[in-house]
């Protein structure tokens, strides 16, 4: 239940503006891959092209290929809705649906596309998803309460439960801990470690220690200057990127000399 992603020569545009230039990267199945780099280097933009969320913005488009186990996400006749149901996403700020209960939040994705699900199956899925997100024990007595009543860290884990309830192939996380306190962050990081047994996880993070703690492989993005496109500078095993980078810019960044 997890697939690999191969990106070939991807250019990402906002209108005429080239935001990310010529990225090729191979992301292994059942692993955690971290994208690091300074603000504005295009790592979040690039992440959003992996489940076709980028094109939600008017004028946004891409050139190149993103292959999910060999199938091009941007091929003719591919419906972005199908792509997104297979590649889940967790956002920077926790965004449970405020008008839904905790239970309905978990089931939100499952009930899409007119799928029917019996109450027993739904109950089991809610429990397994919340357990998968390490949230079950905290919310099992208040499943009918609104999701917006939880703390920030709990809300983010609820969003992860919502994403894994649809049993995606890949989970994308866009700075999932940047709005959370250190304890909640630790809970999410532990969770990421467990998720990689079943899913391919791609995480964007500003926090280099976090990348070092959770990821198997790390990709470093950078820009030459304002208005220039972001580029993939170096990609390799996390240990190598942090202890023995081959590119000077990577070394400067991971050692804290800029960014």
């Amino acid at each position: 239940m997890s697939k690999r992603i191969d990106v070939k020569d991807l250019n990402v545009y906002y209108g005429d503006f080239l935001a990310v230039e010529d990225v090729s990267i191979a992301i292994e199945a059942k692993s955690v891959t971290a994208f690091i780099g300074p603000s504005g280097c295009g790592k979040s933009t690039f992440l959003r092209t992996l489940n076709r969320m980028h094109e939600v913005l008017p004028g946004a488009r891409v050139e190149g290929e993103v292959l999910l186990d060999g199938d091009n996400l941007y091929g003719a006749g591919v419906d972005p809705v199908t792509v997104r149901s297979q590649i889940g996403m967790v956002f920077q700020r926790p965004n449970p649906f405020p008008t839904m209960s905790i239970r309905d939040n978990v089931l939100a994705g499952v009930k899409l596309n007119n799928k029917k699900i019996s109450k027993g199956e739904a109950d089991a899925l809610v429990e397994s998803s919340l357990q998968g997100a390490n949230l079950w024990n905290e919310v099992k007595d208040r499943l009918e309460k609104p999701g917006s009543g939880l703390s920030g860290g709990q809300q983010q884990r609820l969003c992860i439960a919502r994403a894994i309830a649809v049993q995606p192939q890949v989970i994308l996380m866009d700075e999932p801990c940047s709005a959370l306190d250190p304890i909640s962050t630790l809970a999410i990081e532990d969770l990421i470690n467990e998720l990689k047994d079943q899913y391919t996880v791609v995480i964007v993070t500003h926090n280099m220690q976090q990348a070092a703690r959770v990821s198997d492989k790390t990709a470093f993005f950078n820009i030459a200057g304002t208005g220039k496109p972001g580029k993939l500078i170096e990609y390799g095993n996390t240990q190598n990127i942090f202890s023995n980078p081959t590119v000077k810019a990577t070394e400067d960044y991971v050692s804290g000399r800029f960014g």
Partner: protein
Amino acid sequence: MTATPLSSSQGAGRAGDKIFSGAALAAGCLILAVLFGVALFLVVQAIPALTAPAAEIQGGAGFFAYIWPIVIGTLIAAVIALVIATPVAIGVALFISHFAPRGLANGLGYVVDLLAAIPSVIYGAWGAAFLAKEISPAYNWLAENMGWLPIFQGPASATGKTILTAGIVLSVMVLPIITSLTREIFLQTPKLHEEAALALGATRWEMIRMSVLPFARPGIISAVMLGLGRALGETMAVALVLSSGALTASLITSGNQTIAAEIALNFPEASGLKVSTLIAAGLVLFLITLAVNMIARWIISRHKEFSGAN
């Protein structure tokens, strides 16, 4: 660097603060005073009609017998207007906010706002001179084929000047209010929630159902209530379109009357107790509007826990 003593007040900033809060307080009190003044006027002027012997009131059966048919007529016209206008308005607003390309959306939004700028007498003239005539064949069809329903009982009005026509004209009039307000609310839906739905694999319509409509729900109710307020109080259009008469269940025969049109048609020639009766009718309309708004508030507050405001 000189330290500022804690006790010294910073003249200018503090004064500005006081002026602003005073002005805001005054504005708030003014609204209350105006509202109270209107209510007081209505009550005082209405007392003669409410206390007069039944035989002296128009119709000769007392104030209650006089008022309740036109209360029902008012509500029928307003409900017809909202039943037609609300789904259309929400559809148009969603199209403008989430479906139309930007150029078209701006143009369409402008046209809808323009509808609100047309004076109500023009709507009335259009309804009486054009719509009523054009729509009467449809009323005949309804009377023949669906006449078993009390609301479509024949014979249909030959002129088409019925409460249903008045309701349709009212619906066109309240459409821009509801559309503009709901459009603004739809546009304010947090991107975060829209993206949450899309990232789960929602289609555009599913995204709207999951994130936009729940977020906009209190706003939609408020917009509909404002539309209802206009529909309840609209005078000229109904006075021109409706060929009024006694209360009837059928919507496609002449008959029925609304409070606002009743007041407008009779006030110029009224005197003495008749004036008082009409003002009492106005008081009843005031109370209906008040009740409607309170119910709307209650509906909104019932779902506060799930509103996302916390």
